[in-house]
């Protein structure tokens, strides 16, 4: 019961507490504390030092352990820097809304942990919808027209999408008709155990509905629009939270249904759909990178790209699956640094348009360097982790005996890299004519510290590749029926 209370109940109670106590500093401290507790416990559980008993509808397996750690990690750093963001000047309207910030953040943590840990499709659905509800008001943090529109679209698109996922869940019930599962509850593990008995037609229908519905939340093309709007207009910590963890929460649902499908005859079908989804996401990112003129939108498209890559890796299986899991870790960490730096730039230049941001390297030297490093990291330059995970994914695709697929993926990634690089270097180095090149002083605050720490962690994981993580990922792969030679 201790684990359950720390992971889910404590954040809920903190949310309640934040509702009662209006003082932002107190809210901040207790939220950081809860986040830290959450991270510590998740880490201990991940290391396998402590085994947690969870009530019905919730359980741990290797996949939820890994994703929960990613979530907990992202959440902790985001909460840590939140105070700095809250201190920044905003319109008086937005000032009003600040008192709900930590409340929603804690609620987000509770619902998201519950979604990751749930082992019942119904419970998963309810909690995933709750994460949408908790994040939607946070998107509206700046209280301006764009944020409002983004919030409306996100709320609407995702709600409809999740409703579709519910239809998929009902189809799953239908697929169990006439098998030993009929009339039983929708537990993941029960379905996985007797997946072969399920009716293939309903299973396929169920997979399509769940995948399409949840891809509004994952941000897989062509359902990515609401997600892009939301990520690009939310305040930077929230954007980092969404890119790093919220998308994975939705992805875990797709992975569960995929796990059910793997031993059945519908496997090829599901796999094709996942590959198409992943490739389409890469293609969307590839197309929009040419014309995007808003750097936060660019980062959002980059998220679409990387989630597409992860989906592709999961679908490919084998070594690519391992790569995809690593990719999820690295992408989450890198996205925090990117969004936090973007947030710094935004607060200095007061604009999100690429053309109006110039000479960041001299005006904000520290942020500029971090931004550059994070860009190198997200583009897969060694020694940053994404390089290694992408290599693994490519290797998996290469052994798929479909060279054309790999060629397409490579071309898309290359052009995304070129276009992103163009935007980054324009922002960082391009100067006005007759502008002085003297470097201005930029204060060192917690955001820079967090960014540096995260980059170090990123490199450390990539270089040392801890056995714990590798073993865990292997366990996940084993659950998915993948054995590595």
């Amino acid at each position, binding site marked *: 019961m201790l684990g359950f209370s720390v992971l889910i109940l404590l954040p809920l109670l903190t949310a309640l507490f934040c509702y009662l106590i209006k003082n932002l500093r107190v809210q901040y401290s207790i939220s950081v504390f809860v986040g830290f507790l959450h991270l510590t416990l998740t880490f201990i559980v991940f290391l396998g030092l402590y085994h947690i008993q969870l009530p019905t509808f919730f359980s741990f397996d290797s996949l939820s352990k890994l994703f929960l750690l990613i979530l907990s990690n992202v959440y902790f750093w985001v909460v840590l820097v939140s105070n700095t963001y809250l201190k920044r000047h905003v319109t008086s309207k937005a000032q009003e809304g600040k008192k709900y910030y930590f409340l929603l953040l804690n609620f987000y943590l509770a619902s998201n942990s519950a979604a990751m840990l749930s082992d019942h499709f*119904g419970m998963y659905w309810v909690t995933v919808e709750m994460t949408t509800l908790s994040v939607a008001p946070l998107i509206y943090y700046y209280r301006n027209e764009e944020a409002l529109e983004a919030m*409306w679209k996100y709320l609407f698109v995702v*709600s409809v999408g999740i409703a579709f996922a519910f*239809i998929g869940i*009902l189809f799953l019930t239908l697929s169990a*008709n006439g098998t030993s599962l009929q009339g039983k509850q*929708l537990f993941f593990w029960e379905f996985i155990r007797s997946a072969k008995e399920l*009716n293939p037609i309903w299973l396929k229908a169920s997979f399509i509905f769940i995948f399409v519905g949840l891809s509004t939340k994952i941000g897989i093309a062509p359902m990515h629009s609401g997600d892009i709007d939301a990520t690009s207009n939310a305040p930077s910590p929230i954007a980092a939270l969404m890119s790093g963890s919220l998308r994975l929460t939705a992805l875990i649902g797709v992975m569960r249904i995929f796990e059910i499908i793997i031993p059945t005859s519908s496997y090829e079908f599901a796999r094709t759909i996942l590959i198409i989804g992943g490739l389409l996401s890469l293609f969307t990112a590839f197309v929009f990178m040419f014309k995007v003129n808003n750097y936060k939108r660019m980062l959002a498209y980059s998220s679409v790209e990387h989630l597409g890559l992860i989906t592709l890796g999961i679908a490919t299986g084998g070594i690519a699956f391992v790569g995809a899991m690593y990719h999820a870790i690295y992408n989450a960490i890198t996205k925090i640094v990117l969004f936090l730096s973007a947030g710094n730039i935004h607060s200095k230049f007061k604009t999100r348009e690429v053309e109006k941001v110039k000479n960041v390297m001299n005006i904000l030297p520290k942020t500029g360097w971090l931004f550059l490093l994070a860009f190198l990291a997200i583009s897969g330059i060694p020694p940053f982790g994404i390089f290694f995970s992408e290599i693994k994914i490519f290797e998996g695709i290469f052994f798929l005996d479909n060279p054309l697929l790999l060629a397409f993926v490579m071309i898309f990634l290359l052009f995304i890299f070129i276009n992103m690089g163009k935007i980054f270097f324009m922002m960082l180095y391009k100067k006005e004519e007759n502008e002085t090149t003297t470097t201005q002083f930029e204060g060192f605050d917690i955001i820079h510290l967090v960014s540096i720490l995260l980059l170090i962690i990123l490199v450390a994981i990539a270089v040392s590749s801890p056995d714990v993580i590798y073993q865990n990922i292997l366990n996940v792969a084993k659950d998915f029926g993948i054995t590595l030679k």
Partner: protein
Amino acid sequence: MENVLSILFSLSLFYVSVTSRVKGYVAVLRFQGLILSVLVLLPFLKNFSIFGIILPITLLLVKVILIPSYINKIILDLDIKRVIEPTIQQIVFLLLVIATMIVIFISSSVIAQSTELNVIPFASGFSAIAIGIYIIIFRKKLIVHVCGFLVLENGIFLFGTAVASELPMMIELGVLLDVFVVVFLMGIALNKIRSTFEGFEVTDLGRLKD
């Protein structure tokens, strides 16, 4: 009895596709909520238990009383014009609805030959899902979009009873709560949209583009 209720549900779908009043939509939501509550109540009439009565009552409270009253309140507070402003002619919309329902009914009866399910609730529920989406696509007003979303949700609920999936009550309640909070948040957003955009139509939301 389930069939009878589902047919009434389908009738309400026809009404929702011809009416041109926002009030009509709210009335239909109330009506559908009532039908669903009765549908959930039916099994408990046979073997009555205090515990089992919670879900029908909550359903009644949320879908018949709270949500419709809340939407009515929004309409009143924001002084939204009472006509729905469709993007296509109503008659075309109705024809589309009829065609969709024919397809859905025929395909459900084909499906029912191989799978065990209740055809009429299944087909009615599925039709409601389709019509909810049509409403979202072919109407301009945002408040009507919310109604379309709720019609879709009601359809899913009916559909769920048709495939005889019995989710635990805690989860059913959670679903209801989620739906209510979604509508609540959408209401708040509409409130803000009114003060920011001076309009309630999709065409007003066009700022975010590449």
